[in-house]
């Protein structure tokens, strides 16, 4: 206000100059100077974040209720194991592998609504922990199956089925349900499916994780198999639901070794 009054005291031409022309000139000068460009000297630092640094209290407070909920959920006991279920990498079948392969078949058939010939689990590599005797918590299952794999039902021709068993024989990382075979060297022999000898002229259905179906674990040839159902059901959720089902029937989880994979060296 004061400034305006002072300006008004100036003779008219000066007033015009100060008010309009001078800032305008400045503006033109500014416009003529080169545009801003990033300088050539760039500083960079990829800083480590770790638990020993100060924590922001607002963020910590926001996490707290979620953490409390999560701790409660994850410590929830969903069932019981009658014995320790362990993996047996490289040695064919295992109690853990058989247990999971069997339950994947049961839960897949339940969701699919029709019988499926067999199931597979990449027990060695895919199952990252064991199930101890006693109570089974949600956290145990997250440790056992941290991956977000989704289950698919495939239809395999006879020759793909043959390749499927040969890859199982070669890698010795997988466990199966409703099938039997003997490993001689790196080949599968004496294959039976659903209690009947393997018939190279028929087609077989298989429940399998999308990870394996998409070529993981050396199963690249399964890209030629037909996907007949995407169950939209996670491997982990099948395990959780099965243990809950057992629990509802007052049953415990047990492993069984029944000679479905024999290895002859």
């Amino acid at each position: 206000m004061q400034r305006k009054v002072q300006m008004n005291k100036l003779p008219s031409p000066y007033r015009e100059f100060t008010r309009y022309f001078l800032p305008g000139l400045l503006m033109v000068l500014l416009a003529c100077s080169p545009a801003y460009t990033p300088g050539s000297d760039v500083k960079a630092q990829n800083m480590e974040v770790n638990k020993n640094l100060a924590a922001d209290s607002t963020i910590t407070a926001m996490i707290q209720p979620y953490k409390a909920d999560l701790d409660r959920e994850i410590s929830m006991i969903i069932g019981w194991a009658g014995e320790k279920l362990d993996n047996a990498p490289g040695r064919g079948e295992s109690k853990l592998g058989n247990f999971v392969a069997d339950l994947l078949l049961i839960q897949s058939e339940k969701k699919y609504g029709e019988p499926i010939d067999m199931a597979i689990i990449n027990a060695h590599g895919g199952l990252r922990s064991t199930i101890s005797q006693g109570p089974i918590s949600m956290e145990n299952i997250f440790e056992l199956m941290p991956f977000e794999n989704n289950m698919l039902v495939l239809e395999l021709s006879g020759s793909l089925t043959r390749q499927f068993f040969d890859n199982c024989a070669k890698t010795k990382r997988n466990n199966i349900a409703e099938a039997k075979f003997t490993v001689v060297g790196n080949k599968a022999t004496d294959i039976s499916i659903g209690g009947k000898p393997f018939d190279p002229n028929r087609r077989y259905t298989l429940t399998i994780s999308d990870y394996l179906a998409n070529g993981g674990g050396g199963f690249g040839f399964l890209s030629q198999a037909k996907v007949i159902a995407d169950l939209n059901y996670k491997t982990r959720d099948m395990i959780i639901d099965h243990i809950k089902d057992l629990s509802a029937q007052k049953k415990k989880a047990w492993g069984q070794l029944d000679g479905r994979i024999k290895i002859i060296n």
Partner: protein
Amino acid sequence: MNRRLFVKNAALAASAMMVPGRSVSRDRSIRLTILHSNDMHSRIEPMPDDGRRYAGLGGMAQRAAIIKKIRATEENVLLLDAGDIFQGTPYFNFFGGELEFKLMSEMKYDAATIGNHDFDNGIDGLYKMLPHANFPFLCANYDFSGNILHNRFQPYKIFQKDQLNIGVFGLGIELKGLVNDHLSGGTRYLDPIAIAKEMVLELEKKNCHLIICLSHLGYKYSRGKVSDHTLAEQVSGIDLIIGGHTHTFLEMPTLYKNREGHETIINQVGWAGIRLGRIDYVFNRKRSKSVEISSPILIH
């Protein structure tokens, strides 16, 4: 418009640029600090201290404290994320990404792009979480027409920092083979190179002083697949690529000079919030020489 009115308007415009308390010297330089993360994979808390790799590293509360400290000394900060915010801890399995978005909003993220794992609960799962994010998602090469995410994302955003216009656009990786069809819901992947060229033209036209690409393409591949290196090689005009997907830990950003002589800085900070990337620019009105990246003396 008569001449006098024009002069008057120009004068007003000029005086509007004179922010009180600041020098208006034409040689004044402007500092800009870019902070960034990628592939945080729902790692809300530091990695469990159980002897695993990276035990005790990361943590969003710790990251937030560092960011606050930097904001206290730097006036012009842009905080960006290059995707795969979701998946990796039970926080995602139980809460679907709600906490991740809320914490990023509290930390004042300016923008993020979309990674393949951000589709893990499908387009519906991502859509449901969007109200928890108060920052925009930038993605120029996914076509969501016909699905629930249509018009939910923008290809780019221009941020005004002091007198600078900072153009940021996002690029996503090919979904086929990474994201099941029922999760991506018919989202179409478009050629990132062609789209990036369009973005650069658009952002240059809008007088951006710096062009940043938030990319989830991946740092570099041995075979053909489009990566941040391919982008720097084939698209001139991008000043900075903030990358993700390949979980690459770079000690220092890579400076890539392509055949046309354009220089692009590529940076990526691993995953799980184990590191926070920081890049400091000083803008001035001089013609600049070749870019040189150095690490600052200060260590937090």
